[in-house]
């Protein structure tokens, strides 16, 4: 909200305390945060000055040659204005001053020393428009003769102004007007508040003979006050009124409308003026809307009224959308002579709902929905009527039409304060007197002392404009606020020692993050918003649980219309973005939430959305060789399936769970063969965590449950995300990892005897796997076999086409003795016989 300093000065004497910076700080520390400040009429080099001499220019009839002083120096100035005269106090733009351009986009004028038809001129005497104060160019601006010389323009009374942009929090509707802001300043400066007043003179017939009011909707409107003024002259507003409204950015419409607006910004009560003669049936009805009714509002929009709306109607239909906006048909125009003036209290939630329903917000609705002073309605009606009669002529009809609902407050509310409670809550010593004084400074009235919960208390009458002060704690906040929060001591709480370990999920996520960082991966973070269109690129089946994403009712854009069941598309997009930036190595991971829309879990309080933390890995481009510059090294190599597999193997070990990889996997978005599953045996579920979804689809399954998958991205998905392949992807459920049986670390005795090894070269068909061959080795029956190590996989000269050579080492060790060659040979021989049963294996 914009607030004018000149305007505020009408209600509080700020002499000696009107430094804009200091006021801005004071307001902010009162909770009225000043977000911006605009100094109006500040033009460096433009000062008040006096015309000492003024003579006709010898060469030009229309010019005068003047001698002008700013109190310290005297300058020759040539002036073209007809009204310049000796002895005037004027605005002098000195050499170097820059005047604003005349109209938007027009260049400014820089004042220089000049010669005008042979006469020296060291400055310019300014007209109103030249310094941006008004439209008038009829002549120079003549200041009050009492103006001191040499004052910068913004300090000259009546010329400059300071506009504060204040962020008023929703609990402070009282500060949405100039008297409200002035009241706060008066309180901290210890000055009285001068509330506005105007003398009301009633004349002519009583209002009751002119019009009637019916208050039907007593929920939506608890107080309605009407006045009538007849014989007014609608026209342009007086200068002071135009200036006041303009200073806070409000356009002048006509004198009647401007005065209602002025009072709104002055005391915070919205009012509405109707053309009395346009009210059909001479009857004003406050009622609910009726189906089929329409209203053309002042913004020229045709509104369809609903039965939930509240309207101000006449005998024929709605005239005003109550509290929000007036109607075209009853508006005050140049031909209006008689008006009906509405001043009312509308229920905040009702106004808010209808404003939202019609997508409308106005200065009035903004205040009604925050709550205006319920005790001031009649006073404002009288005050505004008096102002209108004064400025627009006409006479105020006798009396008010006043309708009050039974539950409308008529007295200030009382709230009790226990000063010791305030001290306890704030943690500072105040004393009852300090508490009371601070509250009185903003208009609360101190009442009787009493006891409350065994402690001394004081009752305070709360003025109507502070509807937010309902409870003791609200008064305590006022006491703290008015005494400056920074005065409250800084004290650590005395709490018992305690330690809380991180929750398992947090601690697991942290372990995974750090492990992957150490393994060379970069942690990513994506906005969780996505779209069904992007999700569809994964090619999920229609019945895939991951189709159940969470739709947003008011998304920022089409691309961000859901919270997705998988963050993989976002990470793939990030990979594509980096590929487009010519990034060669893409090694991203992210721990992100998946959201599943599962209405079957919806209850009164549960949202019917399941959230699951998932880990995603995306690798593309090159993987760095450990020896980037050695003679036998390649600088880097294309990232392969087994890079990802190795990362996952280490990751699962670091996570400390019994999990294993199985082949192939089955995941729509992965290569059908070059992919795998991550399986784990799950511990019996902790009650309340039975429901796991996402990759942990085998709900209830305990043995070999799938908790993740990995592999090469399917070419179709690759193309859909415009990625250059191959791209490797892994997906792992953190819930799955947490549910998996942990790997227990226990000491196992190991022999101190040395190992022996036997090498074996096998040639097999290219499609045969290492895993199949391993599976044929009866390891469990050979206790001395410690390890089977694969040394190389070879295709090329010496090995027939379509076949490959596998080179294995078998490592033997006995826990209690040194093995002999014969013993090892015997075991290896049996093992070879076992392998030889497979006709596809050829020994070499």
């Amino acid at each position, binding site marked *: 909200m914009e607030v004018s300093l000149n305007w505020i000065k009408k209600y509080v004497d700020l002499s000696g305390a009107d430094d804009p910076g200091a006021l801005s700080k004071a307001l902010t520390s009162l909770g009225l945060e000043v977000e911006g400040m605009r100094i109006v009429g500040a033009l460096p080099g433009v000062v008040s000055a006096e015309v000492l001499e003024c003579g006709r220019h010898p060469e030009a009839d229309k010019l005068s040659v003047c001698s002008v002083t700013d109190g310290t120096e005297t300058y020759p100035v040539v002036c073209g204005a007809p009204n310049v005269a000796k002895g005037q106090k004027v605005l002098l733009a000195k050499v170097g001053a820059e005047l604003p351009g005349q109209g938007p986009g027009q260049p400014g004028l820089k004042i220089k020393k000049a010669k005008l038809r042979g006469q020296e001129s060291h400055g310019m005497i300014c007209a109103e428009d030249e310094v941006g104060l008004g439209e008038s160019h009829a002549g120079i601006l003549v200041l009050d003769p009492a103006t001191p010389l040499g004052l910068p323009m913004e300090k000259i009374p009546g010329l400059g102004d300071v506009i504060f942009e204040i962020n008023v929090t929703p609990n402070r509707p009282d500060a949405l007007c100039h008297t409200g802001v002035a009241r706060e300043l008066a309180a901290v400066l210890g000055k009285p508040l001068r509330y506005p007043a105007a003398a009301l003179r009633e004349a002519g017939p009583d209002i009751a003979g002119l019009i009637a009011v019916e208050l039907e909707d007593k929920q939506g409107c608890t107080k309605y006050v009407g006045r009538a003024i007849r014989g007014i002259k609608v026209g342009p507003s007086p200068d002071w009124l135009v200036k006041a409204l303009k200073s806070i950015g409000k356009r002048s419409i006509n004198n009647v409308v401007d005065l209602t607006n002025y009072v709104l910004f002055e005391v915070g009560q919205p009012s509405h003026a109707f053309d009395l003669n346009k009210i059909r049936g001479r009857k004003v009805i406050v009622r609910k809307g009726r189906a089929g009714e329409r209203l053309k509002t002042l913004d020229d929009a045709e509104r369809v009224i609903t039965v939930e709306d509240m309207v101000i109607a006449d005998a024929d239909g709605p005239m005003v959308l109550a509290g929000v906006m007036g109607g075209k048909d009853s508006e005050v125009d140049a031909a209006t002579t008689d008006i009906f003036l509405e001043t009312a209290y509308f229920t905040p939630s009702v106004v808010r709902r209808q404003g939202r329903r019609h997508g409308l917000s106005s200065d009035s609705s903004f205040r009604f929905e925050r709550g205006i002073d319920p005790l001031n309605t009649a006073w404002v009606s009288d005050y505004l009527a008096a102002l209108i009669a004064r400025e627009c002529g006409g006479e105020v009809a006798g009396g008010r039409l006043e309708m009050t609902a039974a539950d409308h407050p008529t007295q200030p509310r009382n709230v009790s304060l226990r000063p010791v409670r305030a001290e306890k809550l704030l943690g500072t010593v105040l004393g009852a007197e300090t508490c009371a004084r601070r509250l009185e400074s903003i208009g609360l009235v101190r009442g009787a002392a009493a006891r409350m919960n065994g402690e001394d208390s004081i009752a305070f009458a709360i003025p109507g404009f502070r509807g937010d002060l309902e409870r003791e704690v609200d008064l305590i906040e006022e006491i703290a606020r008015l005494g400056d929060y920074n005065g409250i001591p800084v004290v650590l709480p005395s709490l*018992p020692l305690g330690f809380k370990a991180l929750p398992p999920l947090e601690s697991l996520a942290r372990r995974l993050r750090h492990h992957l960082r150490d393994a060379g991966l970069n942690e990513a973070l994506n*906005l969780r918003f996505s779209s069904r269109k992007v999700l569809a690129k994964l090619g999920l089946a229609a019945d895939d649980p991951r189709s159940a994403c*969470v739709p947003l009712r008011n998304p920022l854009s089409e691309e961000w219309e859901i919270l997705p069941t998988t963050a993989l598309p976002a990470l793939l997009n990030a990979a594509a973005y980096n590929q487009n930036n010519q990034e060669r190595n893409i090694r991203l991971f992210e721990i992100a939430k998946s959201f599943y829309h599962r209405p079957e879990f919806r209850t009164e309080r549960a949202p019917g959305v399941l959230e699951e933390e998932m880990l995603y890995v995306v690798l593309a481009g090159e993987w760095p060789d450990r020896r980037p510059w050695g003679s036998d090294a390649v600088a880097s190599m294309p990232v392969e399936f087994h890079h990802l597999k190795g990362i996952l193997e280490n990751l699962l070990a670091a996570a400390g769970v019994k999990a294993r990889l199985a082949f192939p996997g089955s995941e729509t978005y992965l290569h059908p063969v070059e992919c795998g599953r991550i399986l784990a045996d799950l511990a019996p579920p902790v009650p309340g965590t039975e429901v796991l979804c996402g990759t942990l689809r085998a709900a209830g399954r305990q043995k070999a449950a799938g908790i993740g998958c990995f592999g090469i991205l399917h070419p179709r998905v690759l193309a859909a995300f415009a990625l250059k392949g191959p791209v490797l992807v892994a997906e792992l459920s953190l819930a799955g990892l947490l549910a998996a049986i942990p790997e227990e670390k226990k000491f196992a005795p190991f022999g101190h005897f040395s190992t022996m090894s036997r090498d074996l070269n096998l040639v097999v068909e290219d499609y045969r796997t290492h895993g199949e061959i391993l599976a044929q080795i009866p390891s469990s029956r050979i206790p001395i076999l410690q390890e089977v190590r694969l040394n190389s996989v070879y295709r090329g000269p010496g090995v027939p086409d379509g076949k490959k050579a596998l080179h294995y080492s078998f490592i033997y060790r006995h826990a209690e003795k040194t093995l002999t060659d014969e013993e090892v040979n015997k075991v290896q021989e049996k093992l070879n016989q076992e392998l030889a049963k497979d006709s596809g294996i050829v020994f070499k």
Partner: protein
Amino acid sequence: MQPIDEIRVRLDGDVQKLESRVAGKSAAQAPALASGPEEEGPTPARQFEDLKVRYLGKKGEISGLLRAMGTLPAEERPGFGKLVNELRDRAEALFAALQERIQEMEIAGSLAGSKLDPTLPGYRVPLGSLHPMSQVREEIIAFFQGLGFELAVAPEVDNDWYNFEALNIPPDHPSRDMHDTFYVDDKVVLRTHTSNVQVHYMETHPDQPIRIIAPGFVYRVDNDATHSPMFQQVECLVVDKDISFANLKGTLFLWARHMFGAETTMRFRPSYFPFTEPSAEMDVSCYFCKGTGTVPTGTGTVPAGTGCRVCKQTGWIEIGGCGSVDPNVFGKVGWDAEKYTGFAFGFGIDRITMLKYGIPDISYLTRNDNRFLRQF
């Protein structure tokens, strides 16, 4: 005795000659000495072996003397034998010393001959990176964990009750305007703040002291250089029988000095949050300009004396909102507001991350540009 003296003189001469040859070699020539081409005849090591064999070998000169001893008269033998033994001891000592010299020379030679280029890059898989927000988040958690806080969580998609109503934000209340809310439907929202944790936690831990910290993602319909529709907050809640606003200030002060440096000062401005009363905004003095609004000398990157861009020349940085727990919140979760008091505060991890690393635009945090991620 003459042959003994003769041999001793020759031995001394030979040893001295070889010694001076070894000593004469500079370290730079040493490799050639140890293993280089034998331009100057045999290497010192070879010469040494030859000499040692010549004097101390089985068929060497000293052994020759002993063998010759048999030709001496019996009475001369003990005296002769003693002298020969002395000579042998002397020879062994000389050769031992010389051998040590030669070995040292050889080691020095082999070390100095290193062709290693230690400036070549080390063999490694380059370290990856943790997202800067993860790092700041961990740092904040660690601080509060040290004070005995428990980490608590709540859903990101939540019922209106937890995000609004139980936090004293009724439907159709203007304070809802402070939250640009994403809706799933009338009753389900993306949480607009981590304060929903307060409600979940108090409901599940009734009538007991509370000390929790709750970091997490929150959502607002907002998108510009300083606002992201998804961002990360940290919420703190302390509830006990004697918790005051002064305790809130004490806790925040300790944290602010940990996070922004020991010289940090802070200020509180009244504000409004429906779930705290009194409510405040907390600012800390700008860590960059030390609260002066002007860039100090010695920072290097920006000329001293220019306006501070970190705090936009105000000297203060806005950190977050805080306050004492509103009695209505206690009421909503069925707690006795006369018995318990508490404080809560919340601040943005994004904002602190941007301040800490000087990140100018919030969209860097979620763009996942390799050139950004690798910096952390």
